[in-house]
C-alpha cells in the first residue's frame, strides 16, 4: 500500500533552490556514486592503523598494565597508556570526568585502557590482545535507584557536586515546584513506566584520520557534530594550544547525538604525534556500541489528578535516569526530562523530581529527543490512562488540556509563539484511516509475522493510538549558543559566485543545502559554494538540539546581509540610488523593482567578504536553591519549543505478541519549511527511530555488560518494519527565529514511541508500561 506524503517532489525540484523550494542535496550525487569521502574512507600512503584495548569489567581497579609483548609485535609502532597522555588525562562535554585512557580504575565495560598503532588493523588488534592488564575486579553499581541511596558505594570517589547540587552518585537533581501539588482531585491515576537503553545506531562507524603536522600540531579529519568542542577537548589532552589542533569535517554517516562526545579523536591524535605518522582509526560495529553514549534508560513514577471534566488539577512526576559511568551531557538531559515531564499540557500545580545517576553501566548522553523522549512515554501513557478512568476520548482529553500560546511551562516560562497542540492532534485524528484488513483473503506480507506464516488473520486485532510531544530547540539554561558564518561574493570566470564557510557539521540532515538556499535568496546569486567545515573559522555550535538551521542559518543570513550592505555601499559610492534596494538575479533591484546595476559589473575584481556571529536570544538558568520556600526550578530556560503529534494504526497478533504497523501519521509545526524535501525526510526518519524504541530497540545490559553489541542482536527497523507514513507539515512561523523556522529534527522521534504503544494498548487491552514492548508483554505470558 502506498500513502503519498504531502510534500512529495512534484517535478519542480531543483538543485539550485531558494528558500522554501524543494531543493536537492548537493552532496547527494557523490553519495550515490560512492565518491563521498566519509571519515572511514580516508587514506594516506604511509598511514598506520590505531586500535583500542577496552576493559572487560564494569568496575575494577587497574593495578598494572604490561605493554611489553604488544610493543614487541612485528608491525607495531606504538602502544600508549594513560602515562602517555601529555595534557589533561580527563575530558568531557560539560564535566571533565572521563579518562582518555583508564588511570587507576575502570568504570564501565568497554572503557578504553590502551591504544596501539600498527601497519595493519589485524596486527594492531592482535598486539592489543597481548597487553596484560592486572585488574582488581569490584562489584559494579548497576541499579540506578539503589545507586541513589546514601549508603551506596560510589562510582566516583569524589563525584562532581559543586557544579550541580546532588549527593552520592546523584550527578544532578532537578527539582521543579509550581503551584500547590497538595491539592486533591476527583480522579487520580498513578503509573510506573520504564524506558530501555536505546542506541543511536548511526551507520557510519566512529572513525577518522589524524595527521601529524610539521609545527608539532596535528590535523584531524573527523566525523563529529561539533568540531570546536572536539578541538577543545583534544587540545587539552594533548597539552597543545588550540591553534595546533586543527579539525576538518570528514563525511558523517549519521549522528543522532552519538557524535557529541569524543570517541577516537584524542586517541588517534596521541598515536599520530607519538609515531609521527598519519593514524586511521575505524571502530567495528561491536566497538561502536562501546564507543559512544546511549539514550538514558529511565524509570518514572507519575500521579495525575483531574476534575471530572478532564481538567488537570495536578501532576507529580519522579524520573530517574541512569547516566552510566561518566557525565557526558547528562546534566542537560535530566533538565530536559524535568522540563517536559508534564507534556504539552496546562497544569498549574506540578511537583517534578528529575534525578540522573552515576552507575557502572555504559555512559549515556545525547540522543535525538534528549530527555523529552523518556518522559513523553510517561506522560502520554498517563493521559491514555486518565482518559480511560474518566471515560473521555483520549484525543479530546489531550485537546481539553492542550498548551497554547501564552501557556505556562512547569518552570513558569511563558510559551511564546504558536503552540498548536490542539490543531496537531485534530489533524492526525481527522486524517483518513487506512482500509480495514480484508476478511475474505489474506496476504502474509500484510500480517504480523509476515512471510514467517504465523497467522492467516486469526488472533489479529487492530488498534489506533495517539500521542503528542514537544521539546526545546537550541541549548538552554543560559548557555551562550551561537554560530559563525563567513560569506564571500565575487566574480569568478565572469560569473557571480557566493562562498559560504562555517564550522557547522552536515551530518545528513541537509544543512549545507539550506545554507546555499539562504545565500541564493539573500544575495540573488545562482552559484553558491559551500566551503568544507573546519576550525579555521569560529565555532558553529553543535549539530544538536534541532538548532543548527536556526543558529547557523541565522549566521549565514546575517553574513549575507552584511555582504549585501557592502555591495549597496559600493553602488552608493558610485552615485547609484540604492535606497531600499535588494539583490536579485545578479542585479541590484530598486524598491520599485527596477534594475539599478549588475552586481558582477559593480564588483569587477573586488571581493566582498563578511563574517558574522548569530547568538540566539538569551535563556535563563533554572532556579536551583533546593532549600528555598515556594516555587523552584523556575526560569525561562528554553529558547523555542517544537511540537509534533502522531497517530499509529497497528495490527497485533494478540496470541503470539507480534506487531505489524499499518500506518503512521505525523503532524508537525516547522515554522517555515526552508527545504520541504529535507523537512519531510527528517520527520519520516525521526518517526522511525521512535518506532524502533517502541518495538525493538534496546541495549540489553546485565551486570554492567552489554549483551547485544551487534546489528544481529540490536535490532533497528528495516523497511519491512516501517509502515507507510503520512506527513502533515504546518508552517506557523516563529517571529523570533530566522525566517520564522522552528527546529525540525527531534519532535518526530518524541511522540511516535507512545503513539505506537497506545495503538498496542487499544488492540490488546494491556497496560504496556515499558518500552520496547516485548511479545510477552502483549500476550501477558
Amino acid at each position: 500500500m502506498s500513502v503519498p506524503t504531502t510534500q512529495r517532489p512534484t517535478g519542480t525540484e531543483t538543485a539550485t533552490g531558494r528558500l522554501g523550494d524543494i531543493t536537492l542535496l548537493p552532496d547527494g550525487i557523490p553519495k550515490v556514486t560512492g565518491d563521498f569521502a566519509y571519515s572511514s574512507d580516508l587514506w594516506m600512503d604511509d598511514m598506520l592503523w590505531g586500535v583500542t584495548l577496552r576493559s572487560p569489567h564494569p568496575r575494577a581497579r587497574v593495578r598494572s598494565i604490561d605493554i611489553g609483548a604488544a610493543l614487541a609485535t612485528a608491525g607495531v609502532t606504538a602502544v600508549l597508556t594513560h602515562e602517555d597522555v601529555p595534557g589533561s588525562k580527563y575530558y568531557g562535554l560539560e564535566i571533565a570526568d572521563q579518562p582518555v585512557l583508564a588511570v587507576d580504575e575502570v568504570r564501565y565495560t568497554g572503557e578504553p585502557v590502551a591504544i596501539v598503532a600498527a601497519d595493519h588493523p589485524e596486527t594492531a588488534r592482535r598486539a592489543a590482545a597481548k597487553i596484560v592488564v592486572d585488574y582488581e575486579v569490584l562489584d559494579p553499581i548497576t541499579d540506578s535507584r539503589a545507586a541513589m541511596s546514601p549508603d551506596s558505594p560510589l562510582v566516583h570517589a569524589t563525584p562532581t557536586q559543586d557544579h550541580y547540587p546532588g549527593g552520592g552518585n546523584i550527578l544532578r537533581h532537578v527539582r521543579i515546584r509550581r503551584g500547590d501539588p497538595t491539592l486533591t482531585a476527583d480522579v487520580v491515576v498513578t503509573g510506573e513506566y520504564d524506558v530501555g537503553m536505546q542506541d543511536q545506531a548511526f551507520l557510519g562507524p566512529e572513525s577518522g584520520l589524524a595527521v601529524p603536522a610539521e609545527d608539532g600540531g596535528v590535523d584531524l579529519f573527523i566525523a563529529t557534530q561539533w568540531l570546536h568542542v572536539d578541538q577543545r577537548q583534544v587540545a587539552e589532552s594533548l597539552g597543545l594550544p588550540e591553534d595546533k589542533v586543527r579539525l576538518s569535517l570528514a563525511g558523517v554517516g549519521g549522528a543522532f547525538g552519538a557524535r557529541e562526545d569524543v570517541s577516537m579523536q584524542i586517541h588517534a591524535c596521541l598515536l599520530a604525534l607519538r609515531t609521527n605518522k598519519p593514524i586511521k582509526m575505524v571502530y567495528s560495529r561491536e566497538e561502536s556500541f562501546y564507543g559512544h553514549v546511549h539514550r538514558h534508560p529511565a524509570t518514572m513514577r507519575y500521579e495525575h489528578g483531574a476534575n471530572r471534566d478532564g481538567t488537570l488539577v495536578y501532576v507529580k512526576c519522579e524520573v530517574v535516569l541512569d547516566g552510566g559511568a561518566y557525565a557526558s551531557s547528562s546534566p542537560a538531559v535530566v533538565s530536559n526530562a524535568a522540563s517536559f515531564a508534564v507534556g504539552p499540557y496546562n497544569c498549574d500545580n506540578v511537583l517534578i523530581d528529575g534525578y540522573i545517576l552515576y552507575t557502572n553501566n555504559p555512559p549515556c548522553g545525547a540522543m535525538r529527543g534528549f530527555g523529552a523522549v523518556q518522559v513523553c512515554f510517561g506522560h502520554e501513557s498517563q493521559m491514555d490512562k486518565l482518559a480511560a478512568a474518566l471515560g473521555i476520548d483520549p484525543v479530546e482529553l489531550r485537546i481539553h488540556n492542550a498548551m497554547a500560546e501564552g501557556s505556562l511551562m512547569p518552570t513558569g516560562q511563558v510559551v511564546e509563539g504558536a503552540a498548536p497542540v490542539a490543531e496537531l492532534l485534530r489533524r492526525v485524528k481527522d486524517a483518513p484511516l487506512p482500509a480495514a484488513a480484508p476478511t475474505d483473503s489474506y496476504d502474509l506480507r500484510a500480517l504480523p509475522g509476515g512471510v514467517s506464516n504465523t497467522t492467516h488473520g486469526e488472533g489479529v486485532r487492530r488498534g489506533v493510538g495517539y500521542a503528542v510531544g514537544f521539546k526545546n530547540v537550541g541549548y538552554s539554561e543560559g548557555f551562550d549558543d551561537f554560530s559563525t558564518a563567513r560569506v564571500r561574493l565575487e566574480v569568478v570566470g565572469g560569473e557571480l559566485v557566493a562562498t559560504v564557510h562555517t564550522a557547522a557539521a552536515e551530518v545528513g540532515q541537509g544543512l549545507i543545502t539550506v545554507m546555499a538556499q539562504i545565500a541564493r535568496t539573500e544575495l540573488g546569486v545562482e552559484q553558491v559554494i559551500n566551503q568544507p567545515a573546519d576550525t579555521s573559522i569560529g565555532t558553529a555550535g553543535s549539530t544538536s538540539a534541532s538548532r543548527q538551521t536556526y543558529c547557523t542559518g541565522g549566521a549565514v543570513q546575517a553574513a549575507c546581509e552584511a555582504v549585501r550592505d557592502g555591495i549597496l555601499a559600493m553602488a552608493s559610492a558610485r552615485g547609484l540610488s540604492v535606497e531600499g534596494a535588494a539583490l536579485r538575479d545578479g542585479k541590484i533591484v530598486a524598491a520599485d523593482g527596477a534594475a539599478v546595476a549588475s552586481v558582477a559589473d559593480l564588483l569587477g575584481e573586488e571581493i566582498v567578504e563578511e563574517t558574522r556571529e548569530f547568538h540566539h536570544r538569551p535563556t535563563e538558568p533554572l532556579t536551583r536553591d533546593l532549600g528555598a520556600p515556594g516555587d523552584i526550578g523556575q526560569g525561562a530556560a528554553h529558547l523555542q519549543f517544537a511540537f509534533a503529534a502522531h497517530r499509529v494504526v497497528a495490527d497485533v497478533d494478540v496470541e503470539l505478541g507480534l506487531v505489524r504497523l499499518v500506518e503512521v501519521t505525523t503532524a508537525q509545526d516547522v515554522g517555515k519549511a526552508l527545504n520541504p524535501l529535507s523537512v519531510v525526510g527528517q520527520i519520516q526518519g525521526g518517526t522511525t527511530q521512535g518506532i524502533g524504541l517502541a518495538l525493538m530497540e534496546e541495549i540489553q545490559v546485565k551486570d554492567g555488560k552489554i549483551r547485544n553489541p551487534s546489528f544481529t542482536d540490536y535490532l533497528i527497523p528495516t523497511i519491512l518494519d516501517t509502515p507507510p507514513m503520512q506527513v502533515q507539515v504546518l508552517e506557523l512561523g516563529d517571529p523570533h527565529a530566522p525566517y520564522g523556522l522552528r527546529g525540525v529534527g527531534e519532535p518526530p522521534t518524541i511522540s511516535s514511541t507512545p503513539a505506537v504503544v497506545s495503538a498496542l494498548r487499544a488492540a490488546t487491552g494491556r497496560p504496556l508500561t515499558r518500552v520496547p514492548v516485548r511479545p510477552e508483554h502483549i500476550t501477558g505470558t
Partner: protein
Amino acid sequence: MRLTFDVNGVGQQADDVWPGESLLYVLRERMGLPGTKNACEQGECGSCSVYLDGTLVCACLVAAPQAQGRAVRTVEGLATDSAGGLDHIQQAFVETGAVQCGFCTPGLIMATDDLLANTPTPSDAEIREALAGNLCRCTGYEKILDAVRLAASRRTEVTP
C-alpha cells in the same frame, strides 16, 4: 597471498593480502574503492552489497581468497554505461530525497539494481521484501520507496 580478480571490468591484483581479510577490506583499503560501505561487517546491514559474478553479496561476508579469479562490480562501476555520470537508479535516489547521510545508499542502490533486473515493475510489497536486508537509519525508508518506484518507472520507459 596474491589476489587476482576483476573489479568493475578491470583486471586487478593485490599483493600481501592477509587471507583473513574480507572482500570489503580489499575493495576499500587495497583497491581504493571505499564506495562500498563498512557499517556492520557481519552481513546485517547490506551497506557493503556488491555483485560477485553477478550475484548480490555482502562483501564483508566474502573472504578475500573467495574472490580469486572472479568478477566484482561495485557502486563505482554502476554508472559506467551512462553518459550523464549517474545511472537511472542513482538519479532517482537523488531526486526523491532518498539520500540523507548516505552511508546506506550505495548498498541500497546495488540492491535496487538487482531487484529491478529481476522484477522490472515491483509492487511496494516486493520492494520491501527485496530491500529488507538494507538498513537505513535516517530516512524511514519512505523516500527510498519513492526512489525505487521512480527508477522502475523510468526503466520501464526506456526498455518496455
